[in-house]
């Protein structure tokens, strides 16, 4: 199997690429990441735009993301970030190489307990990271699809609160769907 000699740099800071510091909500953790990875978050992108040239090395604090979740989110961003910050919008299609690799990564990435999954989906929504939001939502959707209500409640940790009579009433109301 061939390896392409890559003389264009390893994409890391050695090629002088900008990094951004992100700080978790409780201020307990600071993460330095490549700009291309951080900018996968539309929220971060907006915060940088608003901070303007004044953005100092203090980093950007994300009030709604705790350290553990932020670490995991950045794991996703680092993997999915484009090789360079320059817009890859000019590609006619995503490169086929590496797609299988990303799919494998994504499958492993969501093999977590429900609590972590919910934290991830919330963080992805707040940070507006489209790929991560779709991945986590699809994962939860797959736990609902084709399952009985009891199975769904069990997997997702939902308490019904319906009395048997109430549940029957709901079913009758929507009989056309059952």
């Amino acid at each position, binding site marked *: 199997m*061939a390896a392409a000699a890559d003389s264009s740099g390893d994409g890391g800071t050695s090629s002088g690429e900008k990094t951004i510091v992100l700080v978790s909500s409780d201020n307990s953790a600071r993460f330095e990441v490549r700009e291309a990875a951080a900018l996968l978050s539309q929220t971060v992108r907006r915060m940088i735009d608003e901070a303007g040239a004044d953005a100092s090395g203090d980093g950007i604090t994300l009030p709604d993301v705790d350290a553990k979740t932020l670490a995991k989110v950045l794991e996703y961003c680092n993997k999915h970030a484009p090789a360079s910050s320059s817009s890859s919008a000019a590609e006619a299609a995503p490169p086929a190489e590496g797609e299988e690799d990303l799919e494998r990564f994504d499958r492993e990435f969501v093999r977590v307990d429900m609590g972590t999954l919910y934290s991830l989906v919330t963080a992805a929504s707040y940070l507006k990271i489209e790929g991560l939001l779709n991945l986590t*939502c699809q994962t939860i959707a797959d736990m609902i699809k084709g399952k009985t209500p009891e199975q769904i409640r069990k997997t997702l940790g939902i308490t019904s609160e319906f009395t048997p009579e109430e*549940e029957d009433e709901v079913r009758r109301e929507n009989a056309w769907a059952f």
Partner: protein
Amino acid sequence: MLARKAPKNGSAGAAAPVEGRDNISNLPDGVLQHILSFLPAQDVVRTCVLAKSWRHMWESTTVLRFVWGGTNEPESMVPEFVDHLLRLRIRGCTPLDTCEFRLLGYHEIDMTRINFWIRIALQCKVRVLELMCWGIPPLDDHPIFISQYLKKLQLAGLSDDEMPSRLLDFSCCPNLEDLKIVDCYLGCALLISSQSLKRLTIENGSFGPDCRMPICAPNLVSLWLEVSNGMIPSLQRMPSLLAAYVNIDSDVDCIDSDDDDDDEDNQSILLQGLSDVQNLVLKSFWTEMIIFRRDLKFCSSFNKLKSLLINEYWCEPPDFSALACLLKLSPVLEKLTLQLYSEGPEHEVEIKLSCKPLEMSAAISQHLKTVEVKCQVYDERVRNVLTFLSKLDIFQRIEGYA
């Protein structure tokens, strides 16, 4: 984009607050709607029995997916379910964002009914419409796309030869930006036309055997065109085009007939339309296909082309004239990739060459930095290509290994 909050129904009563991080019901409504948007419509409506807070959530969904068949569907959906759900939507006047009709395998679904449902979806101001029907019998009735709200349309598996000729004329969809056509027979369509279209994807396109179909999308930004069968369509000029992928597998345009269509004399079919592009892929399976080579005579230069990927079609010995011509027409080219006799995405051999054209030469772009060669075997054919390129005096050093 957050969806509206689920309407609070007074009679449902206040749900008891639920504790614990594990509870999905604590997620914001927008996120819950996003999760529902991945589910088939039946599963969405059935969430009403999960818990009190879920009772009416399905009513706010703006994404409806109707899926029949396939191994993942435990039961087939009853058409009355679809009727009922769409009737509720029309009555409720809530606009739809996405509507998907996916039929996998043969089903006794009356296509007239599906067309009726599509009309309702369009009436609900749907923005994204997907119709995917492999394995159904020929349609008696065809959808007509008229909508000022439709932004994205995907058609897959439409393989009958009775399609209305104006099916793909989207002048009645003034806001259509994305069109994706997969596994469809396009021989009956007169043309593909849209002023607003930004992205066009045709995968495994089967075109008609006798008539060349024009594609008029003057504001296109991105094009993906696979011609598997039939006559290669003609492309009108696309000044905003950034990226294009063109892969010709069809063998129809391989014969250089003497009685060419008069309209086609002295006019480019493909390349002129692509001449403003920045990233370009041009591949043809058949070396006998004449259109690429013929177009070189009639097209102006690719003045913005930075990155070009071509296959062995262009590298015909002994003079490699097509390649030479293409290089001459690309004055600002920075990266050239030659994919020779190798489909990818993995290639056994990848060679990367650094370039620096030594002198001002009309033969090749002065900006050329990299040439990559990807193939399965470093054989004589590949060597000949490299020999040709080296005669252009551009290589500084060679890196790479098999």
